[in-house]
């Protein structure tokens, strides 16, 4: 279990990191989906979790959110050991599947999840729908929304309780380029206000919008650093090539 090459520490100040994983492992039978990951992630930054399909991104997120029990190791979010039901109040999680109720309206979905997080404030729902530009579709039945609109609604449901830590599992899949830019602008605004954001993706062109990248390969963090640092370390301007070089293997999905 060699440690991944750490190219930048990431962690800014003293005190508790936003997210801490220590020797985190998750096996499904013989498959090690997450294999001995130890990371500290600082507050108010955007972390990109990059890797091919099946590299363990979703499993890592589920371990950090407390939806899966680790085979070994431990995870902490905001200094609280996961799983913790109470701590989920401070965590937003946008799943890879839309995870919204098709027969409810957009507003009903958002206010349901708001209530699940213990938020009764109607303005929180309105604001979340505003952020994803669904305010004019608030009364539309979710099943009638387009794929991109459902994705935006899914994001709204993860934001509605204004969590200090936000996990986004492939949030921009099926979102058109213009809206994607707006998504990222919004992520930046949230991060500037102190929100820690973990975004998983298997496309590299979003990588440069992150403050720091974690390359994932076969359940491990194969490299970590800013886009510039990783390019320099790999000796290439192409991030995809950098990924392949730093992951020490040829079989990487584009």
């Amino acid at each position: 279990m060699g440690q991944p090459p750490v190219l930048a520490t990431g962690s800014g100040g003293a005190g508790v990191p936003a997210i801490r994983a220590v020797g985190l492992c998750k096996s499904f039978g013989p498959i090690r989906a997450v294999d001995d990951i130890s990371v500290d992630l600082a507050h108010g930054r955007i972390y990109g979790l990059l890797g091919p399909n099946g590299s363990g991104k979703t499993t890592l997120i589920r371990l950090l959110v407390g939806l899966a029990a680790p085979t070994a190791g431990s995870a902490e979010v905001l200094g609280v050991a996961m799983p913790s039901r109470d701590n989920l109040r401070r965590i937003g999680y946008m799943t890879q599947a839309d995870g919204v109720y098709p027969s409810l309206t957009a507003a009903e979905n958002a206010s349901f999840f708001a209530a699940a997080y213990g938020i009764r404030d109607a303005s929180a729902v309105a604001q979340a729908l505003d952020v994803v530009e669904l305010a004019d579709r608030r009364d539309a039945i979710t099943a009638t929304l387009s794929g991109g609109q459902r994705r935006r609604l899914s994001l709204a449901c993860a934001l509605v309780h204004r969590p200090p830590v936000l996990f986004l599992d492939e949030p921009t899949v099926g979102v058109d380029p213009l809206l994607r830019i707006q998504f990222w602008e919004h992520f930046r605004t949230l991060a500037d206000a102190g929100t820690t954001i973990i975004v998983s993706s298997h496309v590299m062109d979003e990588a440069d919008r992150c403050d720091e990248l974690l390359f994932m390969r076969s359940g491990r963090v194969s490299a970590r650093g800013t886009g510039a640092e990783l390019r320099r370390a790999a000796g290439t301007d192409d991030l995809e090539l950098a990924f392949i070089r730093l992951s020490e293997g040829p079989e990487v999905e584009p």
Partner: protein
Amino acid sequence: MSLRRTQALFRRVVREIRRDRPSIALLFIAPLVVTGLLTFILREGETPTIDALIVNQAGQPGTLVAAELTRALEAEGATVQAAADEVSARTAVADESATVAVLLPADLATAQPPTITILTNGLDPSADGAQVAAVQRAFLAVVASAANGAPPTIEHTTIYGVPSSDPLVAFAPALVAFFAYFFVYLLTGVSFLRERTGGTLERLMATPVARGEIVTGYSLGFGLFATLQVALLLVWVIGSVQVPSIGPLPAFAVGLGVDVAGSPVLAFLVVVVLALGAVSLGIFLSTFARTELQVIQFIPIVLTPQFLLSGVLFPISSLPAVLQPLTAIMPLTYAVDGLRQIFVRGADLGIAELRFDILVLVAFAIGFATVASLTIRREIA
């Protein structure tokens, strides 16, 4: 029509079904189990126990008939005792220490023909039918051996309800219970499966919502619709509204107009408790299903045996002995019995049997809810 494409489709279908193990099992095993069970019940059913009482009100002429009748009934496998009078016989049949009483009238020797009264409990008409049939056969034997007298008129009366005036009185409560149970299970099972497969449960588990809250929320939500369904069903079964003829339309009645001896509100409560148990059963069984089709496939395993065994169709006392203990673990058994106590006997909460039925149904509902909430795990993958 392309042979290749058709063949590709055929192969795909076969492959899909082959990988759906539960479907395969149900396709081949379920029909065997259900038909086997039905055959077993019909063929190997227990002859009902007959504990007969003979009340001789005719004095000396009746003694001979009573003795002949005793012999004939014992030949049928019955135990026969004499009872002093009609009142003590009624008490014995009511508290089920006797299954049937035969009253020989005072005018047995003089009337042409005399009227013999057969008294049964009345809660379960199909079980009563077996008792009456046995006594009738015994009488035929007596008459045949006597060879002279005219066959007596046989009159059947019951402690509770009116015998065989309306078979629905005993059958309707069983159907109400079964359908409430069936539809609530199906509705909850499918919609909770959607929650599991649609990704919303994953998301819900990432909120501070507790498992017990989910089960309670579901029970309340589906409980509301179950309540409405049961209310409508009971109104339909009990009510009868005469619609006068309008123009060429003849007059007709809406509603089945089944007589209820007891309180419809109490009947309603029994079915609602049963239905709440069905909500949790649906949540629990959705754990074992991956598709909506599989939720439906649980019906022959979970619901059909209850339909066959819980007294809806066949009296529990007539089931094969090995199957009888099974009825004790089926919620429907208690609901059917409780509803019959109310419909036929007119039982209220003062009746111990009804209190027991309701208590067991509440225990089932709580038990299923506990098990259901245990199946909702934060770790879903």
